[in-house]
């Protein structure tokens, strides 16, 4: 989707501008109509400025301060330490920086797995439920429940299922299916990463499903009929019609899901608490730990700035890759 105006409306809006020197009736109306859009976007602009832009700039500034529990009370006079936080926090050979880059790499892997699999499940479900059959309405509603559920409820249920040694998952794997001999711990140690991935997918795939189902429904049915008459197989129809037609929806869905997942804080925080196990330590919880558990806000801010830069570069590359072709569908 795009928010750029269509050519038709552009031509119309340009017309009064061109002859504004003459026609006095036009001239009188012009100031109002040129003020109107600004008045309408003003509340949104003010809120964005207040809650997003200014805090972000302040956050970047804090990255250059020595802001700890000692200086937080009077933060405006916290000592300026230049690049010290960046050097300490982002040095890959240091222990802090080493942990940071490790968690950055882990977050990339986590994002790729969660977004990739959520997309695949969402797409499969959307294709399956786009055809008519008995029980379609029920499944369509059911599949949206994980997304409608508050995220903390989802995390609470899964935490209970992966609970200690005697939760539902171990009951299923050890007692009922006999797949494992002893009961692994899930929420600590190496397994915790996979728990995080599964819970995140459970929560996210219905979003992909919802968005892609909507996109599929806007594809005219006669395209498929024409292809079927030409003898195209189901798979051919999927790759030849469905995928190209939902290209711009895919771009939006993947970008949004990617950003959400890369910044994910809620699910690890709810599953593991203040400190994630090392195997599952994503970047946002790591920064939270430095800021609000170890009280080193300057260091946390420096790490956040790195995170922001990574996100901007990744998004810019992605948008550049996708947009030029996606535009043609508008």
């Amino acid at each position, binding site marked *: 989707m795009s*928010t750029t105006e269509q050519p038709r409306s552009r031509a119309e809006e340009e017309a009064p501008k061109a002859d504004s020197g003459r026609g006095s009736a036009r001239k009188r109306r012009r100031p109002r109509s040129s003020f109107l859009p600004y008045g309408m976007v003003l509340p949104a602009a003010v809120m964005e400025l207040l809650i997003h832009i200014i805090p972000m700039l302040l956050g970047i500034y804090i990255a250059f301060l020595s802001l700890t529990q000692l200086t937080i009370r009077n933060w405006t006079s916290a000592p300026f330490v230049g690049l010290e936080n960046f050097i300490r926090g982002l040095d890959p050979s240091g222990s802090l920086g080493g942990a940071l880059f490790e968690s950055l790499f882990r977050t990339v892997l986590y994002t790729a797995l969660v977004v990739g699999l959520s997309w695949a499940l969402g797409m499969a479900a959307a294709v399956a439920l786009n055809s008519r059959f008995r029980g379609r309405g029920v499944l369509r509603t059911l599949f949206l429940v994980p997304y409608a559920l508050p995220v903390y*409820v989802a995390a609470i249920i899964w935490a209970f299922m992966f609970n200690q040694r005697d939760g539902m998952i171990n009951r299923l794997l050890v007692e009922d299916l006999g797949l494992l001999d002893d009961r692994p711990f899930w929420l600590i140690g190496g397994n915790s990463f996979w728990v995080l991935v599964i819970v995140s997918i459970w929560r996210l795939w219905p979003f992909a499903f919802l968005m892609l189902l909507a996109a599929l429904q806007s594809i005219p049915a006669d395209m498929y009929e024409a292809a079927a008459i030409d003898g195209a197989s189901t798979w051919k129809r999927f790759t030849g019609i469905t995928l190209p037609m939902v290209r711009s929806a895919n771009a939006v869905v993947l970008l949004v899901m990617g950003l959400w997942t890369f910044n994910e804080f809620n699910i690890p925080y709810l599953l593991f608490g203040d400190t994630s196990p090392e195997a599952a330590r994503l970047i946002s919880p790591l920064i939270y730990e430095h800021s609000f558990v170890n009280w080193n806000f300057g260091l946390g801010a420096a790490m956040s700035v790195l995170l922001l830069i990574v996100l901007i570069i990744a998004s810019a590359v992605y948008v550049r890759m996708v947009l030029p072709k996606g535009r043609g569908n508008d």
Partner: protein
Amino acid sequence: MTETTGFRWFRRITLAFLTVFTVLPLYVLVVTSVKPLENVRGLFTWLPDRITFQPYVDMWSTIPLARYLTNSLVVTITATVLALIISVLAAYPLARLRFRGKRVFSMTVLSTQMFPGILFLLPLFLIFVQGEEILGIQLTGSYTGLIITYLTFALPFSIWMLAGYIQAIPEGLEEAAMIDGTSRIGALVRVILPVARPGILAVGVFAFITAWGEVLFASVLTDTETRTLSIGLKLYTSQVDTLWNQLLAASLTISLPVIVAFMLVQRHLVSGLSAGAVK
């Protein structure tokens, strides 16, 4: 459309897998919430030894659940309504009018979507504290601070989606109204709003879900009085034990209204999305 056998099998397997994946946790949620406490400890049982609704009674007195529920409702509903008003106002000129700075505005709003929450949590807290001193408005530990934070979270996606949605509405509709003597705002209220209702509903549901599930900012911006459900539910866990049956009974209770609301608007949601965001 003709269906091949292969497609039917693909459909069966996909839907069976996804149904189990979706339902398993929901089953655990429901079944645990009606178990007596001694049945929740130790190895998980697929069926309760006996069914009891005592967790649904006890959960209200173990923690001040009613207060947290009220807090969540006040904050989320206010934030959603304000977000809708603000984003309809902003989406309309983006979809229809031509003005200087439009591209900059829409790109800026969109890019705020990718700011990591963790980056501006502390700065926002510091700004709120500073604002309290200067303006005398209680922003931390009050509804106000949380409401304006949540409504802003909803804005980028809402504006973006609504702009696409409004763009898809034929311009002739408003032009006709304006020829009849209505102002642009009048046309927006009388023509666009009714036609865009499914899109607005869809955006409202998204805004509601975002705010209802928020954890990070709630943990810093609330105090014992204004705590929302996302933070308050932790209190079912003590040093020694978690009252899982009460915790899950409370979880189910507070999820039910959202799920029912979501199901009711589900149809509009898909049609709203297909006209708006995924065009």
